[in-house]
């Protein structure tokens, strides 16, 4: 059983998704129960995987027992285990929140949700470039439908942009995969890394072109500066649990960049190592600047949080751009924090919007709310965490990233990162005081807040203090992960025992 554990994060949501689509006319109570159960099981599987991976051993699952590099493999190392666990934790909050009624606004919410989880988990686990493409498509197709769940003008409009951009991105991905396959003759990432170390010099230009094309594709997913314009509108228009789940989607892009440029284009690739680095570093700083401006300019709470997602993307990419184990360790810690907290804030924003009736999440005067104190308390917690104020997790993450910068990088990173934090602080305090304090006349509406909604928000936002309390063990794990990423030789040796020594 334990040898099949690696494929369970893909199989479990797949089966749950198929059954949920099959019984789409069934009672919503059964569907909710099943979806929540599948997600809880996924957490259990992810915990088991993380325990296995934390020993430092790289294990793989060869489908159909075809040995790598010939067959399709799923690879489990510390990084992929961490990402799967993070996805499962985030997904539980989203599913439970959706059970409060969002899932009944359209059809097939839970089935699509599970299929999206399957795509995300697959992208994290696969060890094969073409399968990365396939799982990207799975998660994108599910996300197209989820983004437009419930319909409405804003969602259709944002959805159209999102779909067209991502379809064009998929074409680029295929071209990049084709170029890399043509130049190296393999699609297995570990095997490609080995072949790059003694590649025909005539082909280096081709490989570099393929590598940078991949960067464009991953940059579109991760929302780097010239490719992020779809994000704020799409995230602001999506239903709350979907927007919260999308918090992990930009991290799929970050993960892909980390994985491909550390494993395939690592130090062993000679002149081809790290072709992404000069681009990522400067673009990340530009992304941070633009995102901070967007945070200040946003006139809607959900748009504001969408821009905060961009700020976190910029911060994470700056960590990748530095490309030292210290920076990787810091960015992984920050990644855990930012995914869960932005997810929680998206859920909270919708709760506030429902309470305010017509004013919604726009930052204008509205009617008073039921449970205003509780909501304000949660908003305060989330805002402190995401703006990076001590004592919550954002502060620790940012300090780790600031510390890991080298002397000449500090000159650029410190002012930009700190100023973007200041912008977030100003925008969030303005939003909070408008929402909760400014002249509220009228009577509160009769909107019911269900326990599911409270659970979803508290589950995700409570992660922030917990990440601080357990900062020691988490930091140890991320440090080991960063070290594993920096030495792709162990990864290659585990997959290809006879080739690992040559590289």
């Amino acid at each position, binding site marked *: 059983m334990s040898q099949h554990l690696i494929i369970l994060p893909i199989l479990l949501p797949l089966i749950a998704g198929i059954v949920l689509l099959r019984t789409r006319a069934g009672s919503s109570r059964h569907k909710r129960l099943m979806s929540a159960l599948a997600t809880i099981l996924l957490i259990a599987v992810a915990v088991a995987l993380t325990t296995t991976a934390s020993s430092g051993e790289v294990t793989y699952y060869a489908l159909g027992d075809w040995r790598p590099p010939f067959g399709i493999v799923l690879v489990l190392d510390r990084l992929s285990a961490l990402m799967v666990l993070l996805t499962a934790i985030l997904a539980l909050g989203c599913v439970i929140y959706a059970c409060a009624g969002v899932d009944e606004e359209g059809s097939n919410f839970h089935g699509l949700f599970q299929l999206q989880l399957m795509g995300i988990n697959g992208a994290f686990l696969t060890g094969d470039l*073409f399968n990365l493409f*396939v799982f990207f*498509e799975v998660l994108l*197709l599910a996300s*197209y439908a989820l983004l*437009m769940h419930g*319909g*409405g*003008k804003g969602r*259709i*409009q944002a*959805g*159209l*942009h999102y*779909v*067209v951009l991502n*379809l*064009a991105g*998929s*074409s680029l991905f*295929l*071209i990049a*995969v*084709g*170029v890399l*396959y*043509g130049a190296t003759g393999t*699609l297995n990432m570990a095997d490609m890394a080995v072949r790059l170390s003694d590649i025909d010099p005539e082909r280096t230009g081709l490989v570099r072109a393929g590598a940078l094309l991949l960067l464009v594709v991953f940059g579109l997913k991760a929302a780097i500066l010239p490719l992020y314009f779809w994000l704020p509108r799409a995230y602001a228009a999506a239903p709350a649990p979907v927007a919260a789940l999308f918090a992990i989607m930009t991290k799929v892009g970050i993960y892909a960049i980390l994985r491909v440029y550390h494993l395939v284009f690592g130090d062993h690739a000679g002149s081809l190592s790290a072709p992404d680095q000069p681009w990522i570093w400067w673009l990340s700083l530009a992304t941070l600047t633009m995102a901070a401006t967007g945070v200040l300019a946003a006139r809607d709470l959900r748009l504001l949080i969408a821009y905060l997602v961009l700020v976190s993307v910029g911060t994470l990419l700056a960590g990748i751009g530095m490309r030292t184990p210290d920076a990787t360790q810091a960015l992984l810690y920050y990644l855990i924090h930012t995914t869960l907290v932005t997810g929680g804030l998206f859920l909270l924003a919708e709760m506030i919007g429902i309470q305010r009736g017509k004013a919604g999440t726009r930052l204008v005067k509205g009617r008073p709310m039921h449970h205003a104190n509780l909501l304000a308390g949660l908003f305060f917690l989330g805002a402190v965490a995401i703006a990076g104020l001590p004592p919550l997790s954002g502060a620790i993450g940012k300090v780790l990233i600031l510390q890991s910068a080298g002397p000449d990088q500090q000159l650029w990173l410190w002012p930009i990162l700190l100023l973007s934090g200041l912008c977030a602080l100003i925008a969030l305090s303005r939003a909070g005081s408008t929402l909760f304090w400014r002249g509220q006349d009228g009577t509160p509406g009769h909107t019911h807040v269900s326990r599911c909604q409270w659970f979803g928000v508290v589950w995700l936002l409570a992660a922030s203090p917990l990440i601080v309390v357990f900062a020691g063990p988490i930091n140890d794990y991320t440090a080991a992960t960063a070290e594993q990423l920096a030495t792709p030789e162990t990864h290659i040796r585990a997959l290809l025992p006879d080739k690992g020594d040559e590289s």
Partner: protein
Amino acid sequence: MESLYAITTGVMSACGLFLILRGRTFPVVVGLTLLSYAVNLFLFSMGGLTTDGAVILDGFADYADPLPQALVLTAIVIGFAMTAFVVILAMRARGDLGNDHVDGRQTDDSREEHR
């Protein structure tokens, strides 16, 4: 043959890109389709163009690389599903937004009519 193949693929992707940048949804959908055709052709050629080669690997003789064909098959299936989806989405957008502009607004209509 290589140059003919390369020119075909290049022209197709150029046309696809041009159409994707248009302002109305129908040309955009056609552009996406063209681009995916071009990509499929490109993928197909990545194992190297072999004429009169055996399909199956027999050791020494001239054979065609089977993997790109498998990849193209996957890409075609995915591309087909995506095209179907984006066509339905474009029709839905036409219905909901009342026009077929990708931004959902008819801002530059008068200018286009004069052209």
